[in-house]
């Protein structure tokens, strides 16, 4: 294939790019309205056209991808499958890749690009999972449309009823050549003395089903007679014996009896093998079904379920409490079992509400594309970890803040293509979204490779507006954190895109409301990255119940490293924060709850130090006594306590009393101020 694109290919690429835009639009409409037939038809047709064009102009890889996806949408058209977010997003992703690929100037690079293979694999997988699903729901009887292509070897005898020569110009000659291209084939041609064809004997091993093979001869039905004989559901060319058998018929016509005999013989050996393979395959697909079948459940039902489970958890705690004085092995056994089962139930129920953040990623892709166009910037959007799961509510609540951050990246971060060029950067800026889990948090990092945040101008503005004192000395982090201050926007001109609607202060507020954290890093000239950390679950947490004076607190278990008991006197008398308490042979800054909130009564002899790691920094919390581990349902505290943000919420204990759930990170912030 020529490397440079010929004029036809160029024109195809131009047309295809237009079509891809139409396809996007159709897909987005379909996503918004999955039952509508007009966008579905448009999507199907557009894909079909792309497939046809791609195949025609030598881009078979694009054609194949389009074909796989088209097959999926055909299932939707036939009512065998529903439009799902998953389907839409694999399609968008796949064609985004095609779009990227078509920017390439070199035709052979497009045709040989490996980058579509992953998407092809995903599409094939998706089809497989749909097929398994529909097989598992075979009772509805509508799955006949999905016939699995299986490999088979055919013996096809084509006898022309009109006179033709094997090198002639009759379509039949070419149809036979086309047929051979469907798989591994061996064609034997028997001629009369005048070189006209008596018949062609074709051995063909292919995954093409017989009805499709028959369709090849549909338009030459009057000019020939075709006999089909499906020999065996496998590739007989794999058997040497079969190849030798065929070779002996180069000159004499194939004897059907001898053929039957050898097929029978080969069938016996092959069957053994396929039985094993099938077994392996069915167990593999069985597993797959387990992973990949989905049902749609109303959100309300899940919320109800979570509510009841949270009640159950409280009750279970009460039961443990109520039976603690009864010295009975049976009761202890039952309560222990119950505890284990409630905790499993809690974990499972939490997972139900989790969905991959992929939907957000798709949304952001559009946003980046549209925005970069409006702002005349060139921006690539990369995402990593789109399969990371998060509470659906949290995803919805986070959409707007994250959109705001991405807007800022493009509007204020990424430079114009010309500027980037002068700076020696590539014209295309990059906005990257990375999501991953760590302990019971979901981490989302949004970064760009733009110009970074100008710390001086942030500081100058903050001083101008009286947010910080003119002579204040701020650390890098503190300066950057100023952008989260209400009413501080670094853009000198409010553009259409950002600087309106929600500001970074609102972003931070929303993340706080979710008990999450946000931090920011920025390198002048290199870019900015914003790290958001959100708790996996909004309401159920595992914690350590501790007591200070008569008040009970809960410290989330996920941040705790270890617990040590030291003499209370080790803590310096009047300070609630001691920077250098030696715990486990290390110095640790310790925050004493007693000294801060309960300093009036007589001090105990010892104090328990809970070592926690928050945002990578080790600190200690000093409490009077540790009461035990518990899982607990967090209830909001209500408006009165809104500003006490070091308390994340409250919880009801087994004995009906109240405990306050601490937010360690905010507790330490409090201690620093």
């Amino acid at each position, binding site marked *: 294939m020529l490397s440079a694109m010929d004029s036809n290919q160029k024109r195809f690429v131009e047309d295809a790019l237009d079509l891809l835009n139409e396809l996007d639009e159709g897909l987005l409409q379909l996503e918004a309205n999955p039952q509508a037939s007009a966008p579905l038809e448009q999507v199907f047709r557009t894909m079909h056209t792309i497939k*046809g064009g791609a195949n025609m102009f030598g881009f078979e890889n694009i054609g194949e991808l389009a074909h796989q996806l088209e097959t999926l949408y055909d299932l939707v058209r036939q009512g065998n499958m529903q439009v799902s977010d998953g389907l839409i997003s694999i399609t968008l992703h796949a064609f985004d890749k095609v779009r990227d690929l078509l920017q390439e100037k070199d035709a052979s690079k497009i045709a040989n690009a490996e980058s579509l293979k992953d998407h092809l694999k995903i599409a094939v997988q998706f089809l497989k999972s749909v097929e398994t699903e529909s097989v598992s729901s075979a009772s509805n009887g509508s799955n006949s449309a999905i016939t699995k292509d299986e490999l088979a070897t055919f013996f096809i005898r084509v006898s022309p009823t009109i006179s033709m020569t094997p090198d002639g110009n009759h379509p039949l000659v070419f149809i036979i050549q086309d047929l051979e291209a469907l798989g591994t084939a061996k064609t034997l041609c028997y001629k009369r003395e005048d070189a006209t064809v008596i018949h062609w004997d074709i051995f063909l091993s292919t995954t093409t089903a017989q009805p499709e093979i028959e*369709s090849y001869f549909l338009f030459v039905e009057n000019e020939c007679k075709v006999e089909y004989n499906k020999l065996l559901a496998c590739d007989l060319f794999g058997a040497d014996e079969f190849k030798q058998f065929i070779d002996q018929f180069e000159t004499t016509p194939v004897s059907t009896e001898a053929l039957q005999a050898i097929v029978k013989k080969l069938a016996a050996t092959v069957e053994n093998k396929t039985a094993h393979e099938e077994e392996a395959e069915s167990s593999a697909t069985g597993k797959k079904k387990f992973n990949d079948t989905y049902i749609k459940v109303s959100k309300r039902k899940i919320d109800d379920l979570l509510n009841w489970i949270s009640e159950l958890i409280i009750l279970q705690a009460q039961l443990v409490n109520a039976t603690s004085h009864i010295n009975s092995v049976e009761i202890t056994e039952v309560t222990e079992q119950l505890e284990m089962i409630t905790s499993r139930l809690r974990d499972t129920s939490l997972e139900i509400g989790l969905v991959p953040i992929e939907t957000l990623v798709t949304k952001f892709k559009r946003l980046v594309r549209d925005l970069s166009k409006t702002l005349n910037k060139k921006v690539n959007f990369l995402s990593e970890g789109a399969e990371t799961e998060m509470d659906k509510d949290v995803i919805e609540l986070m959409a707007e803040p994250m959109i705001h951050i991405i807007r800022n990246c493009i509007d204020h971060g990424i430079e114009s293509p010309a500027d980037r060029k002068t700076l020696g950067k590539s014209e295309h800026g990059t906005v990257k979204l990375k999501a991953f889990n760590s302990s019971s948090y979901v981490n989302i990092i949004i970064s760009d490779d733009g110009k970074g945040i100008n710390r001086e101008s942030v500081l100058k503005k903050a001083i101008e507006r009286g947010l910080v004192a003119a002579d204040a000395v701020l650390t890098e982090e503190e300066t950057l954190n100023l952008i989260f201050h209400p009413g501080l926007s670094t853009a000198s001109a409010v553009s259409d895109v950002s600087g309106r609607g929600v500001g970074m202060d609102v972003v931070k507020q929303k993340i706080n409301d979710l008990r999450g954290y946000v931090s920011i890093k920025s390198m002048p000239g290199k870019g900015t990255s914003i790290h958001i950390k959100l708790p996996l679950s909004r309401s159920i947490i595992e914690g350590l119940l501790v007591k200070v004076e008569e008040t009970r607190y809960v410290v989330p278990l996920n941040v705790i490293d270890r617990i040590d008991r030291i003499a209370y006197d080790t803590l310096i008398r009047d300070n609630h924060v001691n920077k250098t308490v030696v715990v486990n042979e290390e110095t640790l800054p310790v925050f004493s709850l007693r000294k801060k909130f309960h300093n009036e009564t007589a001090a105990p002899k010892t104090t328990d130090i809970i070592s926690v790691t928050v945002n990578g920094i080790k600190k200690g919390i000093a409490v009077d006594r540790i009461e035990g581990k518990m899982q607990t349902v967090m209830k909001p505290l209500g408006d009165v306590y809104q500003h006490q943000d070091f308390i994340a919420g409250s919880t009801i204990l087994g004995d009906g009393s109240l405990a306050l759930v601490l937010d360690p990170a905010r507790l330490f912030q409090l201690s620093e101020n």
Partner: protein
Amino acid sequence: MKKTILVVDDFASIRDFVCETLQRKGYETLGASNGNEAFKVLTEKNESINLVLTDYNMPDCTGFELLKKIKENPAVSKVPVVFLTTESNPDKMRSAKEAGLSAWIKKPYRSETFFAQIENAISNG
């Protein structure tokens, strides 16, 4: 006299490509971007058109609808119709044949097959 083929495809680059391929083989070509347009061209110039080569999946009026329109109209029903398409559903092929289709060429095609089918359709109707 040169034979004229009406090429119908909504995708301009394919239509142009097919037209150029046919022209190189010595055919005259006309183009239309959907079934309705094609039918209009055909009824206006029916004397000079020897073959309609059309895509299957098109907006507004599909290739199949165009085929039926042509075969139901005595003025133009003699003009052979050939589908050039990626569609390969045997049921669709059979109903198209019953509706009077002359040949079904699958995209991507090999040029020998392509010209053999077209030549055959023009001479045998």
